[in-house]
């Protein structure tokens, strides 16, 4: 048996100098898929215009050119600065955002149709936000040439994230409150949801922190019913994260962000430590928190009650939910066709309930297709996480990909009645500038990590210990000259 299979070892060994096989960059695949997504978007735009107004709008050419240019720029930048990036990330997002823009335009038209006064054209605004998002994407790719750079700013980002998260809570309600949730900053006609950016900052921090502390957190003190429980004093971080999400819930009345942040943290903790006990503790803490919140806060009770039986509250709190379900049901298997339904019957269809609009007009097939595209995006992100070599990159990619998955699950689950409603947005699709721009930044980091994951390992430039996370052992000052 000896010496029978040396080949796999060689192939598997990273960093065989000079002999690394040429890894295909797959940029051509990405280009074809992007073209596919752009063509689908433009076709959908034509269908909407013709169905609703009978003719193509004059601005359609400009929109088409602009939208195509955005993805061309993204593609070129990726080709140049992240050539080994996963080829499916960009096309998936292109399709989602194109579909989102189309649905928003379609709902704009519906608003004009019923002769509502002072209808705002939201689709062009969303296109501007998308352009800003692409700008941020390019900036992130250009500035952060190595994702490990991010770990150096972990504590700074944590501080920024917490500030962003806390800002709406301390601002007066006139600036920060929309429909009861204090998660906005509204200035000079623009509204931003700082929580969307806070999410990314905190994920970076979680990744850096957990990589640093994972050995300690993985220490078990005793086994209880087959679970290896961590030591009592190591419970600190998870309790802090839990308190944080409770605070968000209490002061910002934002069920969604609270659930989102805590879920992401627990999953990252689990991935870092490989201890299922953290999941159990997390779920337990969440359950306790949810129960307390239900007992203490009226708005949480209303949410849960309307979730359990929206039709009983159809004229009050359940109206939106009922309209969403009626739209989905009317859409049926194939949907009413783009422009053929009445998705404007659902209040705030452009943002929170855009999935209901998609389900009504594109039917079950359309909505499931959207869910599958999200699944592709998330699983490609997790795949990058699997194959990237450094622990920080692994954890960061996992956190970001899971954040998208968790957010999609919570939002779509809410809109379709699987979960109580939360105020989260549907990533890349829903109307909302902060969400879109922030998610483009998230995408940039994922692209960066996937590039590192698939890039053939360079011969070690500096021999020596691998650059592992430097947080604990070395304060950030060390790297500064």
């Amino acid at each position, binding site marked *: 048996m000896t010496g029978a299979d040396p080949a796999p070892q060689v192939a598997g060994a990273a960093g065989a100098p000079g002999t690394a096989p040429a890894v295909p960059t797959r940029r051509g695949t990405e280009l074809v898929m992007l073209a596919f997504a752009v063509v689908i978007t433009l076709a959908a735009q034509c269908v909407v215009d013709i169905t609703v107004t009978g003719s193509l709008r004059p601005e359609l050419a400009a929109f088409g050119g602009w939208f195509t240019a955005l993805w061309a720029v993204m593609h070129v930048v990726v080709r140049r600065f992240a050539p080994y990036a996963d080829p499916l990330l960009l096309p998936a997002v292109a399709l989602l955002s194109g579909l989102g823009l189309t649905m928003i335009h379609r709902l704009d038209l519906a608003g004009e149709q019923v002769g509502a006064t002072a209808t705002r054209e939201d689709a062009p605004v969303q296109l501007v936000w998308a352009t800003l998002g692409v700008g941020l994407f390019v900036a992130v790719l250009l500035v952060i040439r190595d994702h490990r750079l991010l770990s150096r700013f972990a504590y700074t980002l944590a501080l920024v994230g917490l500030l962003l998260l806390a800002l709406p809570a301390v601002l007066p309600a006139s600036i920060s409150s929309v429909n009861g949730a204090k998660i906005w900053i509204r200035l000079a006609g623009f509204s931003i949801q700082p929580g969307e950016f806070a999410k990314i900052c905190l994920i970076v921090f979680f990744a850096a922190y957990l990589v640093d502390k994972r050995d300690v957190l993985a220490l078990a003190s005793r086994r209880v019913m087959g679970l290896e429980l961590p030591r009592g004093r190591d419970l600190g971080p998870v309790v802090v994260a839990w308190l944080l999400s409770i605070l968000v819930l209490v002061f910002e009345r934002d069920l969604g962000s609270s659930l989102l942040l805590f879920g992401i943290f627990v999953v990252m903790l689990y*991935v870092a430590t490989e201890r299922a006990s953290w999941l159990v503790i997390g779920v337990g803490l969440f359950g306790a928190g949810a129960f307390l919140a239900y007992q203490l806060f009226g708005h949480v009770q209303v949410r849960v009650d309307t979730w359990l039986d929206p039709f009983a509250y159809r004229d009050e709190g359940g109206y939106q939910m009922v309209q969403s379900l009626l739209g989905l*049901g009317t859409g049926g298997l194939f949907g009413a066709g783009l422009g053929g339904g009445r998705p404007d019957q659902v209040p705030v269809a452009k943002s929170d309930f855009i999935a209901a609009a998609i389900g009504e007009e594109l039917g*079950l097939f359309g909505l499931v297709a959207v869910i599958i595209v999200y699944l592709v995006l998330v699983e490609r992100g997790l795949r990058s996480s699997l194959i990237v070599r450094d622990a920080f990159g692994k*954890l960061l990619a996992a956190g970001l990909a899971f954040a998208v998955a968790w957010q999609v699950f919570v939002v779509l689950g809410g809109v379709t009645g699987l979960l109580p409603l939360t105020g989260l947005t549907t990533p890349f699709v829903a109307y909302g500038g902060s969400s879109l721009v922030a998610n483009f930044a998230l995408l940039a980091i994922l692209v960066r990590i996937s590039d590192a994951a698939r890039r053939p390992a360079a011969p070690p430039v500096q021999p020596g210990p691998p650059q592992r996370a430097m947080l604990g052992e070395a304060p950030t000052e060390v790297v500064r000259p």
Partner: protein
Amino acid sequence: MNAPLRRVAISVLVLFTLLIVNVNYIQVVRSEELRADPGNRRVIYEEYDRQRGSIVVDGTEIALSVETDDDLTYLRQYPQGPLYAAVTGYYSVRYGARGIERTENDVLTGDDARLFTQRLSDLFTGRDPSGGDVVLTLDAATQQAAMAGLEGVTGAVVALEPSTGAILALASTPTFDPNLLSSHDAQGVADYAAGLEAADPDPRLNRAISDNYPPGSVFKVIVSAAALSSGEYTPDTVIPAPDLLTLPGTSTTLENFNGSRCDPSGEQPLIDALTISCNTAFALLGIELGEDRVREMAEAFGMDGEGLDIPMGTVGSSVGDIESDAALGQSSIGQRDVRMTPLQAAMVAAGVANDGTLMRPYLVDQLRAPDLTVIEQADPDELSEPVSPEVADQLTEMMVSVVAEGSGRAARIPGIDVAGKTGTAQVAPDVPDHNWFIGFAPADDPQIAVAVFVANGGGTGGDVSAPIARRVMEAYLEGGGG
């Protein structure tokens, strides 16, 4: 960290599968239920997005859809709303459709299978799809005369073309304005509906077809028909006509209208008994004929069955249970449990008028595609042959006598022989009688058969209902109808 990562990847797959399963549940399993939910305005919007076809009488649209600026693209309008309300019904966002609007909905919306090729060509030519038209058999002048005649009273008029069964007029009062139920002003519609709900007598009740009433002496035409058909009687057969009749096996007495005397001799020819509407004579005649013959004749004229669809559903008319000769006597003069709709009463007149052949009454003459091609033309259909042509002639002779010199003189039209029969039905003590008249004209070549019903008119069929019938028949004959 790869082992937990894989588990996370699988968990995501599971979560998304949950989403997909749930979406399937909502969009497939619960789809029908959600689509039909009363709170789902999408179905209504879809319906109002298409131009609904018109309902046409004599080339004039009596119901049409016009484009609006509001949320619902098309508004249903009834230019002469109250006049035709008993036929058109209404088309309401809140209360749905009634009348022809309901029964012919598929054609009016364009969903009817016969309009399929039209829809297909609309699809390819890019024309906005629209519904087909429904052309009614009504005659505008006759309908107007019927409604004018019923002004101020509660009642109904049904006029038929005897040779085809085509309905020339169908009116019921008090009426309502379908425009106010079909409006897009939800509050206005609700207020108007509440007013109708509270009104007494109920304007929503279609008295011509949706309720039945004791016909009184109108039923004597059927008893006469049974007698003549038996072969044992002619119009000149002398039958007993006492002043007072004690019903067999009881101490109940039956007298003539206002206690009057039919004939000093206590007997009279059948034709005279009908002419003056002698109660005792017909009670005895019915008893003499027996329940079977009377009931069979009533059934041959359409009673005792399910109501016909004209196409609106109608309630049936009935002779009722007859458990004794006493009951038979009372039933033979159209009292006790005998009930007729005004439509049924008109059918009795029409059957006699059409040489004893009763045609199935119908309201829809043509269905037309939006391009005016006829997709269906009514085909007159024989319902039954209650009496032979000979008996029909004898009945006509007797009914002409009623109008010429009997209780129906108020229906006389100068220069034209009119056949008819009055009816004054007791409802309850201290409640005014119902007043009926059925008839047809001209007697030798009947063009129109009519039934007039005035609820609790308080007079007799002769002085309350006969003039209305005359007005209706005149309007049709002067208009050159037929």
